[in-house]
C-alpha cells in the first residue's frame, strides 16, 4: 500500500484547531494562495449515534398521518402509529416520544431524504456494512470503517485517547461475524481499527492496567522490562524495523494506560443528577461516555443502540409497543448530549450524527416496486396490536440528524411523500454524500485514497459523491 496524497500529509502537519480559529477571525485573503493549502475543517471530532436494526422514519423524525389503533383497522391505513409533536423549529414535527430531541433541533439539521442502497433482500448487516464503509459487501479487498479512515487521516486528537472508539456493540449476537466484517480498519491496518467498549460502565477497565494490578506495580513491571531487554544479549533497540516497532509500541501502550486522561472513561466521575439523565441503559451511558471522551480529545466515537437480530429497532412485530420503549431509550440521552456539548462549546467543533441502516414501513419491503424474499407476514386487517407497527424494511426514505461541527442550525433538508410509499421526493441523498459531508467537515480531501494491490481505493467508491453543501 502506498500513499498518494502528499498535500494531505502536509495538512496533517498543521494544527487543525488553530487553522480553524484563524479562518473564523480573518477575512479570506487570496494573495499568493498558491503557496498555502486552502482547505479548512469545521470539525475535529465526530460522534455517530447508531440506531441499529432499521429505525422507521415515520415513527420517529418524519411523522405522517396518525392512525390510532383500533381492532379491524386496515394495514394500509397505518403510516404512523404515534401523533406528531412540535419541535423548537417552526414547522418541524417529530413523532411523540422524541420531545427532548425536538428541543435541540435549533442546534442542528435533519436530512429527511436519505435513500439507502438497494441490495436485494434484506440482511441488516449488509446495509450496515454499506453505511459504515460506503462499499457494498462483499468486496475483493477489505474496505475500512468510516472511523478507521478518520483515524488514519487525522490520527488521535489527544494521543492518550484512541482515535476510533466503538461503544456498545457485542459480537456474540446473531450475525456477529457480519458485524465484525465492517467494524474493521480493513486494508489500512489494525492500527487504525476500533477500540471496543461493549459496556460503557466498565469502559475504564479497557484503558487501565489489568484489574488487580495497581499503578505502582504496572510501572515497575515496565521499568524492569526495559532494563531486562536492554541487558539481554540482543538489546531492546536496534537499527532494525522489527525491534524498533516493538519497543515503540510497548512504550505507547505503557503511556496510554497510565495517562490521566483515562479518567474520561470513568463514568463514576460524573455528577449523579447528570448520570441519571443519561442512564436509560447502555446506549444512554454510551452517550455520556462519548461526551466525556470528546471533551478529553477523542477523534471518532460510535455509540450504538446495538444491533441484535429482531431486537432494538429491528421490529418484526409489536412495532408500536417496542418503539415507545426505544424512543424513551434515546430521547433523553441524545438531547442531553447535544446540550452538554453546546454549553461547553465543544459542539462547535464536534459533528454529531444520528442514523440507521434503513427505515421501515408497515407494508412496503425494500423500495417501491421491488420484489423481496422473506418479508414479514402482515395481515390486511389488524386485529392484534402485535401487528400494529412498522415491520417491514424500507430503504427509500430515511432520516439522518446532524448537529455541530459547522452544520447549519435549524435546517430541514429534503422531503418524503405524505402518502405511501413515504419515499424521498426531493433532494435525495445517498451514502457517499454523507461520507463526503463528514470528511468535508473534518477537512479530509474528497479524493483521499490509497493504492491497494495496485489500484487506487478511495474513501468513497471511485471518490464519487459530493458533500451536501447546503448542510454547511
Amino acid at each position, binding site marked *: 500500500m502506498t500513499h498518494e496524497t502528499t498535500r494531505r500529509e502536509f495538512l496533517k502537519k498543521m494544527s487543525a484547531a488553530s487553522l480553524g480559529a484563524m479562518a473564523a477571525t480573518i477575512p479570506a485573503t487570496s494573495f*499568493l494562495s498558491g503557496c498555502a493549502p486552502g482547505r479548512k475543517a469545521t470539525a475535529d471530532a465526530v460522534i455517530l449515534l447508531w440506531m441499529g436494526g432499521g429505525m422507521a422514519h415515520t415513527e420517529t423524525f418524519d411523522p405522517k398521518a396518525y392512525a390510532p389503533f383500533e381492532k379491524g383497522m386496515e394495514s394500509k391505513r397505518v403510516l404512523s402509529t404515534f401523533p406528531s409533536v412540535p419541535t423548537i423549529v417552526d414547522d418541524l414535527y417529530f413523532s411523540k416520544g422524541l420531545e427532548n430531541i425536538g428541543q435541540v433541533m435549533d442546534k442542528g439539521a435533519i436530512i429527511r431524504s436519505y435513500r439507502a442502497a438497494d441490495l436485494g433482500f434484506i440482511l441488516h448487516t449488509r446495509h450496515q456494512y454499506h453505511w459504515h464503509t460506503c462499499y457494498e*459487501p*462483499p468486496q475483493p479487498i477489505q474496505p475500512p470503517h468510516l472511523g478507521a479512515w478518520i483515524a488514519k487521516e487525522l490520527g488521535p486528537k489527544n494521543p492518550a485517547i484512541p482515535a476510533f472508539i466503538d461503544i456498545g456493540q457485542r459480537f456474540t449476537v446473531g450475525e456477529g461475524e457480519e458485524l465484525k466484517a465492517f467494524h474493521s480498519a480493513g486494508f489500512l491496518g489494525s492500527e487504525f481499527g476500533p477500540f471496543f467498549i461493549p459496556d460503557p460502565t466498565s469502559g475504564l477497565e479497557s484503558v487501565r492496567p489489568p484489574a488487580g494490578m495497581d499503578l505502582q506495580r504496572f510501572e515497575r513491571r515496565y521499568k524492569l522490562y526495559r532494563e531486562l531487554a536492554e541487558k539481554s544479549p540482543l538489546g531492546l533497540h536496534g537499527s532494525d524495523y522489527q525491534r524498533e516497532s516493538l519497543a515503540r509500541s510497548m512504550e505507547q501502550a505503557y503511556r496510554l494506560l497510565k495517562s490521566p486522561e483515562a479518567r474520561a472513561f470513568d463514568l463514576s466521575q460524573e455528577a449523579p443528577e447528570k448520570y441519571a439523565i443519561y442512564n436509560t441503559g447502555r446506549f444512554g451511558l454510551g452517550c455520556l461516555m462519548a461526551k466525556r471522551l470528546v471533551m478529553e480529545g477523542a477523534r471518532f466515537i460510535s455509540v450504538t443502540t446495538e444491533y441484535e437480530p429482531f431486537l432494538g429497532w429491528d421490529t418484526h412485530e409489536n412495532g408500536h409497543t417496542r418503539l415507545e420503549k426505544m424512543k424513551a431509550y434515546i430521547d433523553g440521552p441524545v438531547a442531553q448530549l447535544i446540550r452538554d456539548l453546546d454549553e461547553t462549546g465543544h459542539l462547535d467543533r464536534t459533528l454529531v450524527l444520528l442514523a440507521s441502516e434503513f427505515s421501515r414501513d408497515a407494508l412496503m419491503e425494500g423500495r417501491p416496486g421491488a420484489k423481496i424474499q422473506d418479508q414479514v407476514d402482515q395481515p390486511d386487517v389488524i386485529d392484534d396490536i402485535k401487528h400494529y407497527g412498522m415491520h417491514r424494511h424500507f430503504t427509500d426514505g430515511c432520516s439522518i440528524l446532524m448537529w455541530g461541527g459547522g452544520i447549519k442550525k435549524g435546517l430541514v433538508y429534503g422531503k418524503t411523500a405524505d402518502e405511501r410509499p413515504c419515499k424521498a421526493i426531493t433532494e435525495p441523498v445517498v451514502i457517499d454524500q454523507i461520507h463526503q459531508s463528514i470528511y468535508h467537515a473534518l477537512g479530509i480531501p474528497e479524493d483521499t485514497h490509497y493504492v491497494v494491490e*495496485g489500484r487506487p481505493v478511495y474513501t468513497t467508491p471511485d471518490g464519487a459523491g459530493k458533500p451536501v453543501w447546503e448542510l454547511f
Partner: protein
Amino acid sequence: MMIPLDALWFLTFLGRLHPMVVHFPIALLIVALLMEMMTLRGKNENFRGAITLLLRLGAVSAIVSVALGLILHEQESYGGELIEYHEWSGIATMLFSLLAVWLNYRSNKRSTGVNLYRIVLGLSVICLTIAGHLGASLTHGEDYLSSTFPGNGDSHEEGKAGELLAEFASQSPTGSFSPEDLDRLNLEVRAIFAHNCYQCHSKEKSKGDLVLQTKEGVMAGGENGPVLVAGNADQSEMIRRLLLPRSDDESMPPKGKTLQKNEIELIRLWINQGAHWADKELKIFREAELALTKPELPPAEDGRENPVDRWVNQYFQENNQDWPETADDRTFIRRAYLDVVGLLPAPEQITAFTEDNSPDKRAKLVDQLLSDSTGYTRHWLTFWNDLLRNDYSGTGFITGGRTQITNWLYHSLYDNKPYDQMVRELIAPNPESEGFIRGIRWRGTVNSSQRTEMQAAQNISQSLLGLNLKCASCHDSFISNITLDQSYAFANVFADTALEIHRCDKPTGRMAQTGFIYPELGEVEANTVKERLVRLSEIMVKPENGRLARTLVNRLWAKLMGRGIVAPVDEMDRIPWSQELLDWLAADFRDHGYDLKHNLRTIMTSKIYQSVPTGYKSENDLIVSDYRFRGPVQRRLSAEQFADVFSQAIYPMYHAVAYDPEGDTLEAKWIWHREIKLDRDVLPEPGKRYFRYLFEIPANKEIVNAELLVTADHSFHLHLNEKEITSGDDWQEVHKADLTGKVAAGKNIIAAEAENEGPIANPAGLLVSIQIEYADGSWVRFYSNNQWKTTDTEPKGNWRTLLFDDKEWKNARNYGDFFNGKWGRLPAFTHKKQANPQPPVRASLVMLDPFMKALGRPTRENVTTNRDDQASLLQALELTNGEFFYQTLRKSASYWLKISEGNAQQLQEQVFLRALGREPTGKEKAVARKLLTDSPTAENVEDFLWNIVMLPEFQLIL
C-alpha cells in the same frame, strides 16, 4: 502581544510575501559566492566592490525573508518537522550572511581573514540551499522532486521511446520502414497513450469523445475533429496540443507530467510514417514468461554445493556483495523448528544438537522436522488457510453461503499431497475441497464483480498464479494487460449459464466467452461446468504452466526468508531479483513431483537460509523496485506462533479448537436456561441458574465403570444423588470424575447450579456427559440436552433430591453441539484415554479471537498473502492490558509457582531455558531477581513471565 483582530489580515498578507521575497537572498547570495569564487587566486579583484554590495543586499533580504517567514509560520499555523528544519536553516542563513558581511567588511579593511570570510559565505549558501529545498518541499510536497525519479508513480518505466528513436534514426535514414518496424513503432506509441492518456481517453472514460485505446477511436478523433493527419505530424492537433506550454488551457495532458521530448518525437515519427495501426494486442505491462525451463546450475564454489547457494553465490558475485555470516547452532535450531513445526526446540534438543559434531547435522535436523507430519501440518495450516481464504468463522456461514475446506486441507498437508494434485482438487473439487472456488455468497444482490464465479476467477488467479484479476473484473485493468473480457471469460468457466459482461457494474449487453487467462495452455470450453473444471484443472498443472510452480516456490521462499524473490508475492509479473534462482527452484519443484517438503528442504539446507538475518528500516525497503538481496530478513512470530510457543514454554493458552482431526463423537449439548425477551430468544443475563436431570439404570445391570465429563461457562457445582461431585469456574477446563460406586441401579438425579458472570448478558452454557459401562460389555451415555430441566429462581427446599417437584421448571435450551458451540471443541472432553499431560492445543486449529486478531491473524474474508507483522499500539495494548492474556498469565504464574515450589532461582532458570533456550546471563539474573524477589508471589511471577515473553529475543525469529 495583543493584536487587534482587523490588523491580522495585514500580518497574513505580509507572511504570504515570504515565498516571493525569499528569491532575493537566494539569487544575491549565490551570485555573491560565485563571483567570490572567481576572485580565487587573486583574479578578478575588480569584483570586490560588487561582491560586497551583493552580499549586503543579500543579508538584508535574508533578514526580511526570515522576518516574513516567521510571520507566515505564526499566522498560518504550519506544523511538523519540515517547517522546523526550514525555519532553522533559514535563520542560520541569515546569521551566516550577517557574519559574512562583517568578516567581508573586516577583510576588505585589513586584507586579512579573507579565507574565513569565504568559508562563512560558503556556509551561508549551503544553509540557503537547504532552506530553499525544504521551503520548496513545503510548498510543492516532499516528493515533488523524487516523484519524477524512474520507478516512482505510474511513470512509463520501461518506455523505449529514446531507444527506438535512436534505432530508427540509424537504421532508416531514408525513412523507409519495414512492416515489423511500423508495428513496433505503433505499439510503443500506444504504450505511451496507455500510460499518459487512457485515464481520460479510454473506452471507460472518453473525455471530449476521444478514445485513444482503439484504432477506430484514434482515427475518428474527438468532438473537436480529427486528432491527427496521417503523414503530417505538423498538421496534427495531437502534436500541437502536446507541445503547448503548460499554462495553455488546451495543453495535454492537462494534469500530471508532460510527455517526455522523445516520446513526443516518437509520436511525431509515427504520424509522419502514416499512423500505421498494428494488428497486434498491446502488451503495456511486463508479463512474466509462462514457460519454465530449468537453467544450468553454476559451479559450486567454496564448498557451497546446495543449488540455492550456487545461484545466490553467482548473484553476490555479480553484485559485489559479501556472504552474510552463518547463524550459530542455537539460532539455527530455533529458526528451523519455528519454520517447520511452528514450535520451539526443547532445551534437551538444543543441547544435543549443539553437542552433535556430525557435519550434516543441520540437514538431518531439517529432515527430522519435516517428517513430523502432525507438527508440520498444524504449523503450515495457517499459511494455507490464509492463502485459500479458509476459516472456521466469518461472514457467509450464517446463511449457508460458505463452506470450509479444513478437513481436506489438513489431510492434504498431513499426507504431503503433491501440490499439483492439491490444485486439481481445488479447481475440480470434491465436496470437501469445493469451498475454495465456491467463494462467499452474501444474501441479496451483489456487485457483479463479486459474483461467486468472479470470486473463483479472482481467487485462483491471486492464490495460485500471483495475478491480480480484481481490477479487470470491473473494467480493463490499469495495472496489467488483463482485459474485462478475459476476466469474464475466466469467470464463465464456473458459471452454469453464460455471464453477461458488466462494466463497472453496468450491463454491456455482451455475453462472456469462456476461456482461461493463458489460452496457450489449452481449451477449457465444454458443455458442463463440471467438465470445464476438469479441463481447467488439467491445463493448470501442465508442465508448461511455469507460473503455477513459480508462484508457489516464491511464496515458500518469502515465508522462510522474509521477502520473496519476486515481491509483492501476488504480483508475479514483476522482475525477480534472480530469475535463474526462481526458475531453478520452480523447475526443481515441478521435476520432483510438486513435493512441498522437498522444496522446503532445498531452501532450508542452503547456507543462505542458515545465515544471520539482516534488519531493515521500513517495510518499504522490502518492496522497492531496485531491491538488492542480501540474505534472509528478520521476521516476527506470527499470532499463531506466539500463542503456540507461549503454550509450549509457559502455559497452555488455548483449550478449545474449532477443528479437531481426531475428534470424538459425543451427543452432549451446551445448554442453559431459555431466556426470552419480547418473544425472542436472547443472550442469557448474568446470574445463577439451576439444572436437574433424572436418569435410570436397569436393576439387572452391573456397572463396572462410570465416568462424568463436565464444564460450564462461567462456573458450576454438580451433585449426583445429593452428593457434591465436582465444581469448576473455567469452562476451558474439563472436569472428569469417576462415578463408579456413586451411580445406583434405578433412578439417579443430577443437580447442578451454574452461574453466568459479567456485567451484561453474554453467552453461558453447561456441558455434561456421563458414560456407564456394564459388566456385560454394553454401555450407555447420558448427555446434557434440552430434556434437562432448568429454572432461574432459586429453588426452595432441597432441590437436589430425586423426589423434588420440578414441574414448574422449564426445558433447557440447546446452545450448540459439544464440538460446535460458541466455545469451540474441547479436545479434553472425551471418554477416550488420553496422553497425560495432553500436548497444548495448536493455535492454527483455534477460532479467530480478539487476541490473535490483535497479533495480526487476518479475518479470512479475502485471500491474505501478506500479514502485517509490525508491532502496533493495539497489539501492545492487548499484550499489556488485554483481559485474555492477563488471565493466561495468572494461570501461568500459579502453575510455575507450583512446579518450582517457590524457588526463585529454579523458576528463573527454567523459564529462560524453556522460553529462550538458554540460561540467563549475570546481568539478566540481577534484573530477574528484582522481579521475582527471593520468595516470589504470584504477582511477581506474572510480571516476570510477562517480561520474558515481551523480549525481542522471544518475539523475533532470529
